[in-house]
């Protein structure tokens, strides 16, 4: 099953919640107090509230609207308006497959029990940052070779999908959200110094602007 990269491990700590987009599916991805990840349909079955606005209590995610709690399996476990009620089994969110590889969180809009495949990523890289651009993945790819790194030096495509920015090697992992919006997770070789990381972080913003300009001009 195709998997979608939706965020960096570093950016989603214990007890935290985020929204993710995977192949047209609006998801909530959250990590419980013990570090376990879950990915669900981003909608409380009660009144349709996005669960990505919710909060984590121990092993459960609670909806912000009425505080309904859902356990790791997506099953409703507690309804605050009726504390004595044993919630019926029918109150359950759709759960999806999720995993973490190379410091990136991957989800697939398929059954949570299914194993998901992630593309091979060159060894020795670690996450730098994620950006979101109003551009297609194709525009990001094109712009990545046309956006100067230092001075007028252009990045060079290398083996294993790597991109060479002068001395530094990076990888761009894209998640196209819709026709005109793409999330890009940028990995950098683990030996890069802080000054290089800051420079590449700025290059990421230049890449975004270039891809967005390209998209506007073709529209």
């Amino acid at each position, binding site marked *: 099953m195709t998997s979608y990269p939706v965020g960096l491990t570093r950016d989603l700590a214990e007890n935290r919640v985020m929204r993710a987009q995977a192949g047209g599916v*609006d998801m909530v991805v959250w990590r419980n107090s013990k570090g376990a990840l879950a990915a669900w349909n*981003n*909608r409380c*079955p*009660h*009144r*349709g*509230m*996005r669960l990505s*606005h919710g909060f984590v209590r121990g092993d459960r995610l609670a909806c*912000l*609207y*009425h*505080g309904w709690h859902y356990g790791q399996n997506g099953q409703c476990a507690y*309804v*605050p*308006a*009726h*504390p004595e*009620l044993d919630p019926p089994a*029918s*109150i359950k969110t759709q759960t999806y497959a999720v995993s973490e590889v190379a410091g990136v969180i991957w989800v697939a809009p398929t059954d949570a029990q299914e194993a998901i495949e992630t593309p091979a990523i060159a060894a020795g890289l670690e996450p730098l940052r994620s950006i979101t651009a109003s551009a297609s993945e194709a525009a990001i790819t094109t712009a990545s070779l046309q956006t100067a790194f230092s001075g007028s030096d252009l990045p060079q495509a290398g083996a294993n999908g790597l991109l060479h920015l002068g001395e530094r090697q990076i990888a761009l992992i894209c998640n196209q959200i819709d026709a005109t919006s793409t999330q890009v997770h940028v990995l950098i070789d683990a030996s890069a110094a802080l000054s290089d990381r800051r420079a590449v972080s700025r290059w990421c913003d230049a890449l975004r602007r270039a891809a967005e300009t390209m998209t506007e001009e073709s529209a």
Partner: protein
Amino acid sequence: MSLDYARNDWYAVALAGHMGPGITRNTQLLGTPIRISGTADAPRVTDDTGAERPAVIRYDHVWTTLGDTPRPLFDITEADEPDRRFVPCGAVRVRCSPLRAVENFLDIAHFPFVHTDILGAEPHTEVAPYKVEIRDDVDEVWATQIGFYQPQAAKSATEAITTQYEYRVPAPTSAVLYKTCPPRPEAWDVIAIFVQPVSPEECIVWPWMALIDETSHFADLVQFQQEIFLQDRSILENQLPVRLPLDPRMEIPTRSDMTSVAYRRWLKKKGAFYGALTEAA
């Protein structure tokens, strides 16, 4: 057609207090651009063809209708009581179905989580059984005998109390709340929302109050209500689907949602589908 029913209701579209010579307000109602002008004594509403629409002042707002055979505007008798303070709170635009805005107003179970430390607080989350009925004689939804623990029920409240509530839905996009009045326990404070449907997925909400409160500053009364309503706005803009589902299989209610269940059933029975998601729409 979902518009047929909606066109024959009345909608608040401007504050009477904002009317005056040379002032016009351009807005949209049920997808139609309209223009409000004139004065608070003689308001004028015209549609996009330039045609004059009915315009009346009631409950401190200008009301209009796009229908040729409008149902009468509902009555709130407290609006004629001389000892009340009338507090129009302005307009708030929300990217949600007008019906979702009304349904949220009828809900108490969200108080501890969305209006924390004002209208509710954990662990006092339980919603006790209450009564809901569709009153056929007046064609309104009523919920009565509701009690809920509230840390600060009103601007005039000095301590946490168990507040008594009654809800009334006199029209698909208007709702009236009668609630315990802290300074005078034998009377009810009246709080209403009048929802102007801009489109099926966008609305402008006009909160209005008729209170018994002789001491609070007017600005404080307005802000107390604005604080509460704006806490709801970020919820309303994050409900999926945007339109209110009338198919009971799409969202799962519990006992505390009896008012919302009755409201949806009532809309369905009437064919009031503007802003709703329904097989029939």
